[in-house]
């Protein structure tokens, strides 16, 4: 074999191999992008149709990590199929896909309006989260083995939001009464009847002592909501913030707040 021929062959190979790898990478990215879209549509479709798509594109070892807990593939399919999980809208932005052989990581921002066990709340709420999906290629299909979301904190800090919203006892004087204060602390008695939702207000850093069981829904300035139950006699620490709360329990909710000035 002539040396010139060998050199030309090597040069062609040196150029061709990276080009082929890039083409494969690009093909894989397109496939993962298409799978993300299938999963997005499955969320919105819901029911048996949505569950069938999830069944195809979720690995049997799939895990969904949310702030409310961890869910398996079976739990995800069940919530979708039965309609317990309802997604009114969902869109993905800032999506980035990285391919590592037969595995891939997709990250981005997920804006959703949804309700159910797989959402941030059981009632319809708009959320803005960072998401990650990890995919593994199996049998020619990119299957999702991990899905995780993290709620993005409101753009304004709790302190800044507190500046905008009036104090609780100003916004809702009938339900938040100042029962004592000095230069360092303010003590507030909060009383909320069943079904009552107060007006958006702010709190300073505070310790809260529950005088009754309280089952509340909290509405945050960024549109997110969350629900929780606090037991009578418990103490909760909360950083300065603004919110509106609703008593969704079956009895009056009473607590004492000690705010640090």
């Amino acid at each position, binding site marked *: 074999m002539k040396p010139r021929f060998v050199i030309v062959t090597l040069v062609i190979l040196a150029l061709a191999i990276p080009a082929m790898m890039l083409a494969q990478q690009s093909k894989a990215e397109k496939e993962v992008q298409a799978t993300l879209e299938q999963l997005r549509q499955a969320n919105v479709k819901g029911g048996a149709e949505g569950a069938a798509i999830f069944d195809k594109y979720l690995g049997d*070892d799939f*895990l969904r*990590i*949310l*702030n*409310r*807990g*961890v869910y398996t593939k079976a739990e995800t399919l069940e919530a979708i199929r039965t309609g317990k999980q309802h997604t009114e809208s969902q869109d993905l932005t800032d999506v980035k896909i*990285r391919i*590592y*052989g*037969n*595995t891939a*990581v997709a*990250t981005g921002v997920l804006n959703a309006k949804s309700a159910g066990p797989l959402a941030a709340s059981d009632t319809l709420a708009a959320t803005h*989260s*960072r998401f*990650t999906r*990890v995919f*593994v290629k199996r049998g020619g299909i990119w299957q999702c*083995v*991990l899905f*995780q*979301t*993290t*709620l*993005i*904190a409101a753009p304004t800090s709790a302190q800044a939001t507190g500046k905008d919203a009036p104090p609780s006892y100003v916004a809702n004087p009938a339900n938040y009464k100042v029962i004592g204060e000095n230069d360092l602390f303010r003590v507030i008695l909060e009383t909320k009847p069943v079904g009552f939702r107060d007006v958006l207000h702010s709190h300073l850093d505070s310790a809260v002592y529950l005088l009754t069981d309280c089952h509340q829904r909290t509405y945050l300035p960024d549109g997110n909501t*969350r629900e*929780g139950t606090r037991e009578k006699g418990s103490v909760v620490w909360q950083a300065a913030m603004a919110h509106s709360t609703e008593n969704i329990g079956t009895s009056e909710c009473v607590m004492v707040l000690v705010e640090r000035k």
Partner: protein
Amino acid sequence: MKPRFVIIALVILALAVPATMLAQQSKAEKEIRAVVDEIQKGYLKGGVEAAAVLDKYYADDYIGIRGDGKVLTKAQEMEAYKSGAIKYAKNEFKDLKIRVYGRSAVSTTLSFSDNVRNGKRFSGTTRSARFWVKQDGGWKCVYYQTTRVLD
């Protein structure tokens, strides 16, 4: 070649291949477990020691998603430890699960942390996931995401 010999050879292969794969899986899990442990210890040490651990085990294209949804690159996270902007008082993890997919892996943990980031204290439970890729003979973390667990 005698048929009996061929059958015996096939049986040995059929037993040996899954056993080898399992051994490799188990080896990878042990390696990742050791790296996770070292990273967690690094967090607690803080400062330049933490930054050195991250430099060793984070891939150059690492992306970290913190509990408030903020995104940090490897350089930003290392700088935050070096400058003291991130300090851990406590960082305990449990329920470490590792799944290996050839030269990639996913690990998940449940952690209790007490830390200060840019003057803001966070004390609570988080669930975190890491995605690992084997590079240059070692496991490198290319993605980390943490989600605060609601009470």
